[in-house]
């Protein structure tokens, strides 16, 4: 069994209302110094050892992310 993390983020040129909302709220809550916030999704998968990187990339590209508006990164992590 391998542990895999996939992070999916809105593309830089795409509006990110979620990140925006957080960024706008922080100063009101008394937290200064946070310049930009972008919010995306974080997936943690447990996969069988024979699932290769190409398959993981395909899962991310075709399903977890919408490549029209999102970028993604897959990485394997130590258990």
């Amino acid at each position, binding site marked *: 069994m391998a542990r895999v993390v996939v992070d999916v983020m809105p593309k830089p*040129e*795409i*509006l990110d*209302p979620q990140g*925006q*909302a957080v960024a706008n709220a922080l100063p009101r809550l008394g937290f200064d110094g946070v310049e930009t916030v972008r919010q995306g999704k974080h997936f943690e998968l447990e996969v069988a050892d024979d699932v290769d990187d190409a398959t993981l990339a395909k899962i991310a590209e075709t399903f977890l992310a*919408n490549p*029209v508006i999102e970028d993604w990164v897959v990485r394997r992590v130590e258990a």
Partner: protein
Amino acid sequence: MTDTVKHAESTPDQEQPYKELGLKDDEYARIREILGRRPTDAELAMYSVMWSEHCSYKSSKVHLKYFTETTTDEMRSKMLAGIGENAGVVDIGDGWAITFKVESHNHPSYVEPFQGAATGVGGIVRDILAMGARPLAVMDPLRFGPADAPDTRRVLPGVVAGVGQYGNCLGLPNIGGEVVFDATYAGNPLVNAMCVGSMRVEDLHLAHASGTGNKIILYGARTGLDGIGGVSVLASETFDDTAGKRKKLPSVQVGDPFTEKVLIECSLELFRERLVVGIQDLGGAGLSCATSELASAGDGGMRVQLDRVPLRASGMTPAEVLSSESQERMCAVVRPEDVDAFMAVCAKWDVIATEIGEVTDGDRLVITWHDEVVVDVPPRTVAHEGPVYHRPVQRPDDQDALQADTPDQLARPAADEVLDLVKRMAASPNLASREWVTQQYDRYVRGNTVLAQPADSGMIRIDESTHRGVALATDCNGRYTRLDPYTGAQLALAEAYRNVATTGATPVAVTNCLNFGSPEDPAVMWQFERAVKGLADGCAQLGIPVTGGNVSFYNQTGSTAILPTPVVGVLGVIDDVRRRIPTGIGAEAGETLLLLGE
């Protein structure tokens, strides 16, 4: 470097990517003739988007005239604004005016169903707001490919979630719509969005910039690289390798319904405080559209300092700023003495507002970028005097065969098969319950929804003290319209009219969204011409006017067009919503069932 008017004058022979921007040779030649020189990049961006089919109605204009020609003074008597305005407005009595309109967001919803549908709702709501009205409710006539097609499984849930999220988050009850499946929509789903709003008659705001010295204020979201896919061909040279060439951008806009909700409340407060002289929403063509339309409809010129526009992305060119389709923005014309009060209301709602220009006494729209002139045009040539086409019209060769192929050729079911047939029909996608869709829409918010799904038409209470209300229904059967576009459009009208009438309301006005294939196909143009005629003649017979609408062409996959789909929306008035007639029979024992008509 920036392509200024000066630079354009000194480089008359510079090649320009007008074809990539969708302009024809003769259209480009006409722009050069109007300006007496080549256009700058920014001007080219403006003309190309404003002269597109979507913005200029260049193929449909000659036909749509028929709506106006067939509207008599009597039909017009309740109409406060009609075709040509952002949305139609009708006087419904007691000092109330209602504005309503349908618009298509078909292609974007195929590319990115959720955001496409969401921003479709956002756009139509801003149209209604720009009339000075409070948006009250939305509806969503939808068309998809076969229910069991794999792509429908991608498109339908996304569209429904997008319509739902945006409308729910704005607090607009969804009071009706349509869900229809047909193979011709597989590569061309139709996402039409309708909005209705109300205002006091005296509060009607029309989009025009008048009054020399009045200020132009852009307010709402920042401007980013949304939806400028096409215009990026102009930008490629301005980015050297160190900055990284701007890659082809997705032409997808992401909606932010929260920002729009705040924009609505902020705008309504601005209207209430009488701080707005004229107003325009920023729709498909962004600032190109807003500035040229405001200036064109006003009585003077306009000067805009484009570099003042608050941006979300770095390194944007003037052409990109003008073409950006960033959502949730409005442009207002404000008297100089009201600017401070205007800004204070925006600050209360945390809405960014920026003075970007003013109305001038000239007759030109002049746009500068860091003090250099990048646009200097007669605004009417951009907004209202675009190209007009008389496209060839040809009745399709197969029309006779199609009409001859009547149901008479079909086998009749035997008596013992009827029950099974009824069950199969009840379970078929086009007749099955729409609850999976409508459950995702808030129909209760703001507490004025008198009727919504599954009623024949939606009904909204307008006035809690008098109980006055309006009813709305949309309908269209594309198969009927394919068989006979003239009668098909009339059937759509008649069905929507009946749906409104059966709830107890009196139909008073019509809007439409005419979804067709390519206007360059004479057979499609024939369908279009016939449908317009049928709808207009039907309205004349019923005595209610078409107050506005929308045309969506190029809905086709390869050479196969969608079924001609002229979605018709009918607005009715009911003076006491407590007397509405709900759908359904069998509330009490002993009821008598009557069949009316032939």
